[in-house]
């Protein structure tokens, strides 16, 4: 058999590794800033592009797509070439993949702090960037599939099936969840509304966890752990079963983010059942990973890389047990909207994704620079400080979650809430937020130690060169030899059919859950009194989205006695039919806002948004002073916005659209009139008029400023339905 010589592309791996490390530092530092903002809420007072609500999506997007994303590409490009004994199909596509991805990250870093956001979690990037993501992802997929077709190793090893499933599923998820109608260059509305948007969002969101944070890393685990331990995977049979059951079951788990919400019961129950079933394949993967080390556990004692892998896989096992537990409705009733969920996320992210990546980096960099790691001691130190960081991050937040959930639910014997003021539940968990910030600091410190170690290693090593390899081309097998071969090995030689089958497997769950929710009208009972937002309220809603309020406030009152007592009537699906996108939220750092309308007067909101601590002592909410600036709110897009809404099914009439500016002016004037009820407001308002005159600035009346639109929106929330009070006759 004639040997063919070729070179593995190491340069592309190096590029992705460096990008991974740099953006890891950036993304985690933003996370640390957020953690510190919990403790010092006025840290960036007055600076709109550094406020919590705008930085939160920057953190999530950076750590998921920039840190983990680049790690995925680095590991996939490295392992795929060697498992298939071929160079990547196209250097051009490899580089487009790399540079395109980094450009997307830069676009995110610019647009998110400026408030250009869809508000949908892990999908906040607006529509032009969504298109770019789809294109670059396609480039990645084509490069990958063509490489498989060019291979010199006949069997497609399990790691590569995970990469194929990743590519196919992320493409579907991203495209369907990002379906949005543009209003302008950087603003769009989701084609889905309310309950449907929630379901599609969490079909996407949970499967972003499954197919971006899990499956590629399982693929990397199946390559790197055997490589580093120099042992074959524990059970190849198990890996086959593990693969198919994981990708099939995972898709259905999305509704576990929506338990006890207005999502129809049948969808919630499917989410619960499949989430619990998911323990089996997830732990199959964990078992396979850990037991690969049987016989070589003594190596873990001395090898920092294996230490990272062991904690990573263990963390994966923990998170994939905790997740199904959190999917049980009774557990979820306690955990949802609390810091328990944040703890859960970070165990998975810091241990599984972070540590798997660090192990991979510590193994790859010395090999590619043909030298030893600069300091094994520092790598071990990183391991220990990182592990400690994970523990100090997660444990305090578990306690915070339990504490806050219990406090929310406590009743006095006379039926009133013990902690009627939401703030009391926040003040109680401040010490836990301090500890979490310390935990995060330790974790980041570990990463900085990695950066130092890597720099010193690269400095001492040789320039990264492509690696020479040789292997015979794939021979054509005579059909006689293929007689009686098993179905899966037949499939393993046919990557296209394999891809199509994986696609079918992952589509089933989505189709079964999503199509009935969209098509069957009875799933979201119509409420006659629910009307579309007025033009000013629509604009105010867009301000709410811009500032990322959904990151700390929910708009979904669950059908629990304690929530009804605290927030008002529980939320009905029919109330959200005009909400493009939905704003149910995932976390209550602050109280639920679904029925905040008419709860406080306009002055309260005016004072609260300027300086939350003035109306609510002890509040950790930052102020939004830039919304009060002496400049008119930009209403130039309101007609376009309403037209897009009409296309999406919201029943604005042509007259409504024609009258939009007039309606805005009237509604604004009414709010401004209400504000005059407060003599303090009148005094400072008159003063600011004088100041503007002195400065030679044109004075913009309060009705035309951004804050008025936001107040209009807040005052509308939850007022569409009126619950009749019935008097019980004893």
């Amino acid at each position, binding site marked *: 058999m004639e040997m063919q010589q070729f070179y*593995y592309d190491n340069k592309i791996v190096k590029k992705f590794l460096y990008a991974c490390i740099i953006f890891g530092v950036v993304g985690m530092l933003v996370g640390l800033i957020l953690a510190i903002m919990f403790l010092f809420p006025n840290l960036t007072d007055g600076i709109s592009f550094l406020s919590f609500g705008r930085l939160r999506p920057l953190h999530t997007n950076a750590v998921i797509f920039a840190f983990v994303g680049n790690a995925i590409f680095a590991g996939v490009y490295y*392992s795929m070439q*060697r*498992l298939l*004994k071929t160079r990547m199909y196209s250097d051009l596509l490899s580089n487009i993949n790399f540079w395109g991805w980094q450009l997307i990250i830069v676009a995110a870093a610019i647009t998110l702090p400026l408030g250009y956001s869809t508000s949908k979690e892990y999908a906040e990037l607006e529509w032009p960037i969504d298109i770019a993501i789809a294109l670059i992802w396609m480039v990645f997929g084509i490069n990958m599939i063509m490489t498989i077709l060019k291979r010199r*190793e006949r*069997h497609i*090893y399990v*790691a590569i099936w995970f990469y194929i499933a990743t590519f196919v599923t992320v493409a579907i998820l991203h495209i369907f969840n990002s379906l949005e109608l543009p209003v302008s260059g950087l603003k769009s509305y989701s084609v889905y509304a309310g309950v449907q948007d929630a379901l599609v969002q969490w079909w996407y969101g949970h499967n972003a966890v499954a197919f971006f944070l899990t499956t590629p890393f399982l693929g990397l685990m*199946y*390559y790197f752990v*055997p*490589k580093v331990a*120099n*042992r*074959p*995977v524990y*059970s*190849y*049979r198990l890996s*086959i*079963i593990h693969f*198919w*059951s994981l990708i*099939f079951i995972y898709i259905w788990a999305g509704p576990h983010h929506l338990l006890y919400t207005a999502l129809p019961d*049948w969808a919630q129950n*499917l989410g619960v059942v499949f989430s619990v079933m998911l323990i089996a394949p997830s732990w199959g993967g964990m078992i396979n990973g850990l037991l690969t080390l049987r016989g070589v556990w003594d190596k873990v004692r001395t090898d920092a890389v294996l230490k990272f892998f062991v904690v990573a896989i263990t963390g994966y096992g923990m998170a994939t047990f905790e997740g199904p537990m959190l999917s049980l409705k009774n557990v979820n009733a306690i955990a949802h909207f609390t810091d328990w969920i944040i703890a859960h996320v970070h165990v998975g992210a810091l241990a599984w994704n972070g540590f798997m990546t660090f192990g991979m980096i510590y193994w790859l960099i010395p*090999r590619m620079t043909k030298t030893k790691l600069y300091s094994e001691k520092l790598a071990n130190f990183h391991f220990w400080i990182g592990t400690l960081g994970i523990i100090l991050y997660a444990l305090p937040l578990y306690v915070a979650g339990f504490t806050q959930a219990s406090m929310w639910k406590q009743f006095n014997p006379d039926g009133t809430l013990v902690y009627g003021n939401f703030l009391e539940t926040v003040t109680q968990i401040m010490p836990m937020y301090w500890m979490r910030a310390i935990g995060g600091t330790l974790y980041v410190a570990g990463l900085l130690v990695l950066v130092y170690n890597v720099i010193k290693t690269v400095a001492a090593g040789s320039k990264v060169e492509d*690696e020479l*390899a040789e292997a015979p081309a794939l021979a054509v097998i005579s059909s006689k030899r293929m007689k009686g071969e*098993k*179905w*899966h*090995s037949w499939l393993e030689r046919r990557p296209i059919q394999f891809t199509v089958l994986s696609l079918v497997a992952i589509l*089933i769950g989505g189709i*079964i859950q999503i199509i*009935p929710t969209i*098509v*069957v*009208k*009875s*799933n979201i009972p119509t409420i006659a009194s629910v009307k579309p937002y007025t033009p000013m309220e629509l604009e105010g809603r867009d301000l709410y989205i811009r500032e990322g309020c959904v990151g700390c406030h929910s708009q979904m009152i669950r059908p629990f006695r304690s929530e009804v007592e605290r927030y008002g009537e529980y939320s009905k699906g029919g109330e959200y039919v005009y909400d493009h996108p939905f704003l149910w939220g995932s976390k209550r750092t602050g109280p639920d806002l679904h029925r905040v309308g008419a709860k406080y007067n306009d002055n309260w909101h005016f004072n609260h948004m300027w300086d939350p601590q003035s109306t609510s002592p002890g509040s950790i909410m930052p102020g939004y002073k830039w919304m009060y600036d002496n400049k008119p709110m930009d209403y130039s897009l309101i007609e376009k916005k309403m037209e897009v809404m009409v296309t999406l099914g919201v029943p604005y009439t042509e007259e409504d659209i024609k009258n939009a500016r007039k309606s805005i002016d009237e509604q604004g004037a009414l709010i401004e009139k209400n504000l005059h009820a407060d003599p303090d407001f009148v005094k400072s308002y008159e003063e600011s008029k004088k100041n503007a005159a002195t400065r030679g600035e044109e004075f913009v009346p309060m009705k035309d400023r951004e804050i008025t639109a936001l107040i209009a929106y807040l005052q509308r929330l939850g007022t569409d339905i009126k619950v009749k009070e019935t008097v019980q006759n004893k």
Partner: protein
Amino acid sequence: MDTIVGIEIYPIISLSIFFLFFVLLLVWVFSYSKETINELGDIPLKEDN
């Protein structure tokens, strides 16, 4: 589709497909010879870097 009446046929069909698929998968997985399985598991260890 205006109501959800009769919807149960769809999850039943999908459960049947799911069940059948995994039964067949298990049958196939356990019919693989030990020698071949070991070969497949050794793939990442085979290459010379």
